[in-house]
């Protein structure tokens, strides 16, 4: 007879694997799928509590998680498409310009600059936390 603990442990394992994938991979689609994996771990937790409490509210909560995940997928897909259009790559490291002003760029920057296929000019984003300079064409994404 399985108990609540073993299901919670399975949820925790899936959540942590998704976490590792989210922080370590650089492909935006893999990162997104990892986030969905974390949601799956949470859903297992909800269903396990629902089962071992004899109450359906956990299941209805999972349905809401599903609908939020669907919205998230739609928005993420749209964002990934425009980010891809901008840099011609799915690599999140190409968006290091968005880092804080006093942070060093990631070490693999120079390799990226060597290999990247060059790219049509796109609106440049200002460093976070500063008012953008008013020169030239202030276009927006």
């Amino acid at each position: 007879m399985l108990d609540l603990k073993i299901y919670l442990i399975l949820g925790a394992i899936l959540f942590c694997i998704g976490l590792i994938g989210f922080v370590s991979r650089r492909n935006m689609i893999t990162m997104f799928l990892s986030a969905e994996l974390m949601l799956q771990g949470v859903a297992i937790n909800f269903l396990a509590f629902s089962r071992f409490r004899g109450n359906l509210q956990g299941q209805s909560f999972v349905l809401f998680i599903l609908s939020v995940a669907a919205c998230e997928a739609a928005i993420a897909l749209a964002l990934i498409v425009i980010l891809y259009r901008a840099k011609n790559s799915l690599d999140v490291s190409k968006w290091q310009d968005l880092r804080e002003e006093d942070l060093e760029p990631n070490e693999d920057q120079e390799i990226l600059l060597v290999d990247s296929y060059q790219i049509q000019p796109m609106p440049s984003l200002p460093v976070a936390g500063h008012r953008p300079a008013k020169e030239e064409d202030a276009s927006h994404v």
Partner: protein
Amino acid sequence: MNDQSWMTLTNLSLLFGWLAVYFCLPKRISGSSRLIGYGAGCIALIISAIQIFTTYSFNPELVLFCVFSFFAIVGSCLMIVAQNPAHGAICFALTITSTGGIFLLLAAPFVMAANIIVYAGAIIVTFLFLLMLVNQHNADLADSESREPFLASVTGFILMGSMISILTASFSSQSLPSNLNEIELIVNETQEALSINNLSELKAKVINGDNYVVTKLKNALGGSGIWVERIEVDVQKNGTLMVNKSDDIVEIKAALTSLVSIGTEYLKYRPLLRPSIAMAGNSGADPSLPLGKIRKDQSGRPAMPADNTTFLGKLLFSDQLIAVELAGLLLLVATIGAIVIVRQLPTKVSS
């Protein structure tokens, strides 16, 4: 299997799992490290299987759980280490379908169907479509190299280990729910005894030769989770106090009062389950019922309604009607937002 050896085996399999994930994560110089990773992963899974099969009695549910969780964990690990994101998406679909099996084991067939339709049906297909649209070059550098694989995997596995050890510690006493009722009885009894002013009568009721209330409370607290241990120490202290000063009615009453407070502190974990507003009763057992009073099925777990979808629909459209409407609104807004975001603004023609 006791908690000690369970945690030892868990740490061992976590170590091998960490090795597996670390060696399999794409790195610039990979060489044969993926093979090491696969080996370590197999060892970790074998250790976990031994752990599970020695802890629980053998029955069909156990076998199904092992099969589904095996595919879920292997699929998710393969997803986060996949160099080709299309393979990753397929592995994610594998994870989702086997999670569907786990959902069925948890008596949630409707959620299982919705999950598979939404994830494996819609999201995966959309993402594969996007991958084919986008990935027209050769393999990207972003896929063949991960960012800080060591730190990331160490962080993840430390979090996993702490969660598992906390779960193991807090679920180690199987009899926690019935204990709560027992403790409530003892606490009530002690409180009644506090109103007695005659020394001999009080001793007859409470101490009764062999430190009666204290022993009962200690036995009830016996299955020790982490947060019970401190309370047990308190019980020990007050028990000796009562034995030593058993001729003084004030001392005895003080000890009894502290016993009552200890028991009440233990009992305060139960009202957490009680919502302040009563639900309409569409969701199954009333959440305010103590776990011991819920109707059980043959396997000793709370009974769930057999027609899951009917009850889920009733629940959604009565108790949670506003939330359902808001979810629908959210979907609409997300659709509009996605269209607005991807729409290419007409570029100004300079002529």
